[in-house]
């Protein structure tokens, strides 16, 4: 068994896949915890759909699709955030606007350019086994930007999530920090499209974090647990996909869901056991 795994890690494509998958898993968990607690769980999904529009634009114009996805997603996310702040549109509604507008642009550009291509399918469903060295570099740069900035802003972000008014009274420029965070979330999501694709991206943002929240620990510990769940899921999912010849995005997400279900069952069993102990 160990020999098989060792052989597997000899392949360059597998090394690239695992390095980029672990890097993505960590930043998605960190950014995702703030999104989940802000009740912006579907923000990742919406941004990915906007990115779909950006990717379509890139394929249509001949520009590298991820660059157009970055630009379109960041501009759209900042724009929608400003729209929400100035008009008091509920967060879930603004996310719906973002999601559908991105998809609409994408569909129009695809229909103009004559339908779906293989390249577009790889962005829709992801394929981590096909990442290039350039992709790995982009993903690692994204980590190198997102992690230090979140580290510096950590207390400010927690305070804003806890109570925006208290954050304002503490002298924080809440609007600026929110905008910066949205930009970080955007680049995280675009970088992650290679792993699970546009359609499954919100799983990386949401599932490890809601699983970690069930452990009942503090903020930092929850973040570490979420990262651990996420890293385990991507590594296990990639290895499983290789040996079972299944799509890696699917095996990664199903591994995460399995861990989520196991945690729910374990938690319920613990509650029942505690009840029985108290009754006795």
């Amino acid at each position, binding site marked *: 068994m160990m020999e098989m795994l060792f052989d597997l890690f000899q392949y360059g494509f597998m090394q690239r896949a695992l390095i980029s998958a672990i890097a993505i898993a960590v930043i998605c968990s960190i950014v995702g915890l703030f999104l989940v607690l802000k009740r912006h769980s579907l923000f990742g999904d919406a941004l990915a759909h906007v990115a779909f529009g950006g990717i379509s634009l890139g394929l249509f114009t001949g520009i590298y699709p991820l660059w157009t996805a970055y630009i379109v997603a960041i501009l759209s996310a900042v724009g929608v955030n400003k729209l929400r702040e100035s008009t008091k549109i509920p967060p879930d509604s603004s996310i719906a606007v973002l999601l559908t507008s991105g998809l609409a642009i994408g569909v129009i550009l695809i229909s103009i350019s004559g339908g779906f291509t293989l390249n577009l399918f790889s962005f829709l469903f992801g394929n981590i086994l096909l990442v290039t060295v350039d992709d790995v570099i982009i993903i690692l740069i994204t980590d190198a930007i997102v992690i230090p900035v979140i580290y510096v802003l950590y207390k400010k972000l927690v*305070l804003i999530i806890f109570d925006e008014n208290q954050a*304002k009274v503490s002298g924080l420029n809440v609007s600026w920090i929110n905008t910066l965070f949205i930009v970080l979330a955007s680049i995280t999501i675009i970088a992650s499209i290679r792993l699970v694709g546009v359609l499954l991206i919100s799983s990386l943002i949401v599932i490890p974090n809601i699983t970690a929240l069930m452990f009942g620990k503090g903020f930092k510990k929850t973040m570490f647990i979420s990262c651990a769940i996420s890293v385990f899921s991507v590594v296990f999912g990639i290895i499983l996909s290789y040996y079972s010849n299944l799509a890696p995005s699917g095996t990664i997400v199903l591994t995460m869901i399995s861990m989520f279900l196991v945690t729910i069952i374990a938690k319920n069993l613990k509650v029942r056991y505690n009840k029985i102990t108290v009754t006795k």
Partner: protein
Amino acid sequence: MQPIIKVDNLSYYYDSFPSLDHISFSVEKGDFLGIIGPNGAGKTTLFQCILGIVNNFSGEISLFGSNIKQNKKSLQRIGYVPQKKSVEQTFPATVSEIVSLGVIGRDIKRESIDNAIEFVELGEYRNKRIGELSEGQQQRVIIAKALVKQPELLILDEPTTGIDSVTQDKFYDLLTRLNKEKGITVVWSSHDMNAVEKLASKVACIDRKLFFHGESEDFFGNEERMKSYVEFAMQSHMNLHFGKSKNGHDNKENKNDGNVV
């Protein structure tokens, strides 16, 4: 000595209705000011203006001598406890983590966090998630968070609404200790007239306009004044509901040296 808070001719309009109408008063160092007024009287809006959360008001507000619109640094000297809102049980921050948020932008010693938690008598809960505590305990956590930066002024917006009476009494004891033992100036809004009468050294009665500002006994010891306050509050609401417009307010001067305005 310069006042800690100076509110001068403050007006704030929500759509075309005045939420605050030409209000002027000041708070001196060591005051324990209770602000009373019915629902919708503008107490929260008043605090939001004082704290710079709302900026599109007319008039002037100075905190520790500097204009809040021009200089927000004075906010560093203030602890703020907002209107109670229950924290979700799953919110993954422990009591210690929440209290540490009281100081942003500089390092905070573990000892300072522990002292603040001990002061509000929640030492045994420091590693519990805030969402697992009762609402009264959660409010005490927010006070500890406000205390950790050693504020000179504590502003509390209806902190005990919806909290049982035993917990309220503990909370009031805590406020008194903060004012008497630590010398913190307290500005506190409440519906609880009995508590304000018992605790506050000064009282401000508002209902969009300022009705009275002065010594507590000058208000609560004067039955006629209290009666006329009730009439004032009722009249104020009648004006609001029957459409007194932005330009239709009474523009009289608010000279409020312990008198009915």
